């Protein structure tokens, strides 16, 4: 790496280094108990330990599986329902009010009922992830399809495109950026919901792992678990953006944050 490149990386990432340095200083200064706020080195050792023992990977796999299962179900159902709502006036009139009225209601309150219906295991968590992710995905698919310019549809029809072709070649590509914006909102939600449900009560998964470690006063291990969740959240988001940029090659540059 040349020095100009190094300088550019430093110029961009120095705040992260600053925050980490502040943490390390606080931890080593003794102002805060070292057990409550372990040094980065201790967290690193705990992380390596947990990775070697394999239990971090085990719990991460379980959380990841639950989050992705619910997210995948919600993607399929949400896009289908959203598209159907945009295509049919009847379905729109029936479903749109239900979605918009229940959107601001915290679905997590239903978790105890989900436990009764779907059991204490993974299924109740997957279904709650599904329900929470369904909203942004459905609503974005619906608005995305509604936003398509009528002129484009007319132009395609005029050039002899069939209903099916109009859908696949005009409507779907035009709605795709908005649909992906919905997926990008839903993906972190899926992780949040899984972690929350695992914190509330479970014996597997990263939410449990972190809760158990901090309840046993092993804060370095807890931070190793938090680091794992952070890494998973970050990598999933980057992966989704990469998929989006491949599929929607004509519109570059999803903003790094937000959007």
């Amino acid at each position: 790496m040349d020095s100009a490149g190094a300088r550019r990386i430093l110029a961009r990432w120095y705040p992260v280094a600053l925050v980490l340095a502040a943490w390390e200083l606080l931890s080593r200064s003794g102002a805060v108990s070292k057990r409550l706020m372990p040094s980065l080195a201790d967290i690193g050792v705990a992380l390596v330990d947990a990775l070697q023992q394999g239990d971090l990977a085990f719990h991460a796999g379980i959380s990841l599986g639950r989050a992705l299962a619910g997210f995948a179900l919600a993607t399929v159902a949400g896009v289908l329902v959203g598209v159907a709502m945009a295509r049919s006036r009847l379905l729109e009139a029936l479903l749109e009010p239900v979605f918009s009225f229940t959107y601001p209601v915290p679905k997590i309150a239903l978790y105890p009922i989900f436990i009764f219906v779907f059991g204490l295991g993974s299924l109740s968590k997957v279904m709650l992830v599904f329900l929470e992710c369904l909203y942004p995905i459905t609503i974005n698919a619906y608005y995305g399809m509604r936003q398509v310019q009528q002129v484009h549809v007319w132009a395609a029809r005029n050039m002899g495109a069939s209903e099916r072709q109009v859908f696949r070649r005009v409507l779907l590509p035009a709605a795709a950026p908005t649909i992906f914006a919905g997926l990008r909102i839903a993906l972190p939600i899926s992780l949040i919901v899984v972690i929350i449900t695992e914190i509330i009560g479970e014996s597997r998964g990263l939410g449990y792992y972190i809760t158990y470690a901090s309840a046993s006063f092993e804060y370095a291990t807890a931070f190793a678990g938090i680091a794992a969740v952070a890494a998973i959240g970050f990598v999933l988001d980057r992966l989704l953006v990469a998929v989006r940029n491949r599929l929607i090659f004509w519109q570059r540059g999803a903003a790094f944050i937000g959007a």
Partner: protein
Amino acid sequence: MASPTAEYSQAQRLLLGLSLPVLALIAWELCARFMTLPSYLIAPSAIAATTWDMALSGELWRHADASLARALAGFAIGAAGGVGMGLLAGIARPVEHFYEPIVSLTYPVPKIVVLPVLVAWLGAGDASKIAVIAAGVFYPTFINALYGAKAVDRLHVWSARNMGASVVQVFFKVVLPSALPQVLAGLRIAFALSLVVVVAAEMQSSRSGLGFLIITAEDNIRFDLMYAAIIAVALAGFGGDRLLVHLRRRLLVGQMVGREGEHG
């Protein structure tokens, strides 16, 4: 994209919109009366009666009050920091450059993961819950305020400066009003989030609040109580959201660009 079928009238839309929930409620009520449903599916009429009784006795208010106090405290702290820093980052490059890598790294991370550690640091009381809510609220408010302030028309800023406005005046008379729609959109997302987090945190460890009520009612197999608490959570979420939409309408008189009463 308009489909070729006929538009529904306002009355028809209302009727169709109500039809599914009402049908579901009637079906549920009938099933509960004439069939044996699983014990957790008690009749809507019984749920309504319990909810009403608890609202009258004040028990529901006590728990709702505890939850809302926590949610609003976290919301206020997180939103003050998020909106303030977001607007500042939107007008000052160095501030944006400072926050950008930190926020983009931690944005996709569920902030709730730090709850167990915060409980260890701050105790299982209100402080840890308020702190995790504030952390969650910071992100959507920061990002929306940042983009709102960045999208301010340069020409407006230049004109104001040209006519002798001070930096402070430019901020309050130009940047803030034009970023306001985006800021309010961020607040709306953040409010919904603060309720989710408070209920979850109360389910995990608490001695009051609606989340606590839901969990204890479930443990004691008092399903009517559990549903009453769930209804209260739903009403809080819905009511708060309506309030923010109303506030937006009042504040943004003359610049309502989006659809009126748009949800989502």
